[in-house]
């Protein structure tokens, strides 16, 4: 007898429908899986057999052939266990053939017959909904995440035994917990108010957050670059529901999710030894890289000078386009990669703070040049991070502003931008291209334009000029001004990046 069961395979951060066809007929007892399964999928045969027998079900001593269609797609992972088991059950007549109707299944089996969670439950659920399924059977641990896909009935099943009862119509699982009830237990996000001093970094973070600008933090080791950067997600506008869904889906696909809807934007800080594939994603079974994990959030590269050139090169195009295209073998994969970049480095090769530095100007120039190149082109502002003076560290009264207050200003500034950029490709000032910059960042008086010119006196490339304009636009937006005034341009110039290439020209 033939059975056909729908399940979903994870490809990158999306899922693809896979139909598991199981044929059981007379012959020498055998269990064959075809349709480009990898070693992990072939092992499913042993798990399925043991799980069925340990759940008190019959494992037919007949010739069993399972096909994973489309046969051209490479299958990996353990998520096919459940579909194979249900297929065998239906094909051997142990559950009614009319079941499961309009239902997809996804889950790994233990030898004892318990259902185990798989990666990418939300991606799977969204795929099932898009493909027109009404119900999705998942492990209990995956239920909450899968239930984030509205309009799909998620059936949380603890074991194969329960599933058989469900299919025979003798048991109904409890509906998964509702979203609003799933917030407890999460630790509060780090707050800007905890950061002593760092006025410059805080202001730069606020501007960066308000305009979606990439940021470079410069300071000696231990000055608090990482600690300060970690506060950035807390002042970015909270993710919209769709964005939160995207973040959760990616987290789940990478196996990092806690099952809840993401309420904060991600903050990823990969180590500088991370390979290019680790940053942008890849592998023979392509997995999302750090830039995808930071999608809609912040990618923090500490010690950016220590990253390999290849790794930084690889980041360039995704940062520009907001998407990573990976081609492996016969197929290509697009992974979302719209993240803000925050980079950090030492002020000079000796890494001492101002005052104690023993580097001469050439050393510094050489160090800066090592950083330079295509990635720094994407960075709009640079800020200074120094260890705060001891007096400030021990001071009792903290007058620092809380993240929430800064976030309010950021949200207001973003709204102004959204209103101005309506109809444009860019969503915030940091994403404006040259033409949009010239249209939207109009300098008030002619004198302001000259101000910009005379500081640079010809050293600024066209691109550098645009960057200063974009920054000035954001600074004006933060102050709720439609007109860019001289002070905005001056402040923007203060935060600009002087490319060492420009300096050497």
């Amino acid at each position, binding site marked *: 007898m033939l059975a056909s069961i729908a399940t979903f395979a994870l490809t990158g951060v999306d899922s693809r429908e896979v139909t598991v066809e199981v044929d059981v007929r007379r012959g020498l007892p055998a269990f064959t899986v075809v349709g480009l399964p990898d070693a992990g999928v072939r092992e499913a045969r042993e798990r399925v057999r043991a799980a069925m027998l340990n759940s008190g079900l019959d494992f037919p001593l007949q010739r069993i052939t399972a096909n994973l269609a489309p046969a051209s797609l490479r299958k990996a992972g353990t998520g096919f266990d459940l579909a194979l088991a249900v297929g065998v059950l239906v094909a051997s007549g142990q559950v009614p053939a009319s079941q499961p109707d309009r239902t997809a299944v996804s889950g790994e089996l233990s030898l004892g017959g318990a259902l185990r969670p798989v990666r990418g439950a939300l991606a799977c659920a969204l795929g099932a909904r898009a493909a027109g399924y009404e119900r999705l059977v998942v492990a209990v641990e995956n239920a909450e995440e899968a239930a984030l896909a509205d309009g799909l009935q998620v059936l949380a099943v603890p074991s194969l035994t329960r599933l058989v009862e469900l299919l025979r119509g003798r048991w109904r699982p409890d509906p998964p917990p509702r979203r609003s009830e799933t917030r407890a237990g999460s630790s509060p996000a780090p707050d800007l108010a905890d950061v002593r*001093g*760092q*006025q*410059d970094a*805080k*202001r730069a973070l606020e501007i960066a957050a308000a305009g979606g600008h990439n940021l*470079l933090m*410069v*300071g000696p080791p231990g000055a608090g670059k990482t600690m300060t950067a970690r506060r950035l997600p807390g002042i970015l506008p909270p993710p919209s529901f769709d964005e939160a869904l995207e973040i959760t889906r990616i987290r789940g696909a990478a196996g990092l999710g806690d099952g809840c809807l993401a309420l904060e934007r991600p903050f990823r800080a990969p180590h500088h030894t991370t390979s290019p594939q680790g940053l942008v994603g890849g592998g023979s079974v392509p997995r999302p890289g750090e830039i995808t994990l930071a999608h809609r959030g912040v990618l923090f590269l500490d010690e950016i000078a220590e990253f390999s050139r290849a790794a930084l090169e690889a980041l360039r195009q995704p940062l520009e386009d907001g998407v990573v295209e990976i081609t492996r073998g016969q197929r290509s994969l697009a992974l979302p990669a719209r993240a803000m970049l925050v980079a950090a*480095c030492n*002020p*000079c090769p000796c890494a001492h*703070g*101002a*005052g104690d*530095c023993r580097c001469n*100007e*050439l050393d*510094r*120039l050489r*160090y*800066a*040049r090592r*950083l*330079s190149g295509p990635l720094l082109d994407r960075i709009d502002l*640079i*800020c*200074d*991070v*120094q260890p*705060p*003076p001891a007096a400030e560290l021990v001071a009792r009264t903290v007058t620092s502003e809380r993240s929430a207050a800064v976030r309010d200003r950021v949200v207001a500034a973003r709204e102004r931008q959204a209103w101005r950029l309506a109809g444009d490709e860019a969503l915030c000032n940091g994403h404006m291209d040259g033409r949009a910059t010239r249209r939207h960042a109009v300098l008030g008086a002619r004198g302001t334009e000259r*101000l910009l*010119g*005379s*500081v640079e*006196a*010809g*050293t*600024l*490339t*066209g691109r550098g000029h645009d960057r200063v304009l974009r920054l000035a636009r954001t600074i004006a937006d933060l102050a709720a001004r439609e007109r860019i005034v001289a*002070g905005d341009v*001056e*402040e923007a*110039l*203060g*935060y600009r*990046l*002087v*490319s*060492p290439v420009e*300096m050497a*020209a």
Partner: protein
Amino acid sequence: MTGACDSCLRRGYLVGQLAARIAAMLDRPGKRVGALLSLSEDELIEAVSDRSAGVPDIPLRGFDACRERAEMADRGVRALCRHDGRYPPQLLQLQDAPAVLFVSGHGDLDLLAHDSSVALVGTRRPSPYGREVAQGLGRGMAAAGVPVVSGLALGIDAEVHRGCLAADGLAVAVLACGPDVPYPRTNRRLYDRVRERGLVVSELPPGQRPYRWSFPARNRIMAGLARITVVVEAADPSGSLITTQFATQLGRGVGAVPGQVTSRVAAGTNNLLKDGAALVTGSQDLLDELFGSESDEGRAARAQAAAAVAIDDPVQLRLLEAVEASLGIDGICAHAGVPVREARAGLSRLERSGHVRRDPLGGYRRTAVPC
């Protein structure tokens, strides 16, 4: 209307037409160019004609002054011949003074005839020290109202123009190609900015590309226009030293900025100093040299230059102090007692006035030569 008579214009275009042939003839550029350029029209044609090629073709047979004038007007180029009253008289001291100067840019033509211009030149690969001094001198001269002549080359020349433009000064760039050709291309924006308020000058007609020989030829014009030629940094031998040779021949002043004795790009300038060039350590020295230390004119110019770099605003002063003490931005804010926003804006103003420089990684340093 352009200030060039037909015959001078014809001569200017002839040099342009023969430029490639002159280049083919001269293996090594140098004084021989001067000799060539002082020849009469027919002699010049004869001198550069390739005799083995048989009958030389006659250049400029179809020369039409009206058409070329219209063409120049299209390209925004003006011409000034030696018969025009505005032609810089000091240039006529050159034995081979160009018959016509092609000028681009919105500056006043009288700028060229100014009797106390300074030529500031130097190497294309300067040290950071050289850049800083060059920009400071350009700025100081601009503040004192002295026209600054340079060559728009990479390195020192570019810094000189930058300093001069930053202080809204009178910038004159003398090119080794047509005045409408931004060369080198890296300095394209700088070229545009010089043209906005100053002048770009060349003896080659519009559209001409530069040749090897045209660089020393351009140097003689720089030396000819300026009362003093100052070399900021130069190796030995170098094009900048050729400029000073021209200046010496014309009996004009030569100055040099002292450099580290171990630095290759200071060899030329230190040798100049040994040979008796004026020692220039800043704008005040140069203005002394230009106007004399006792003259009223000199006193006024020095005062102007000093006033341009003086800071009245107490906040700006405290910002500068804090930069000198190499505090971080937070330290700078604390010292000046202003919020970070105003500190950043204030530092940009100090950068604009040349008091501080930005490191590539964002740090601020006080400049060694404020004037």
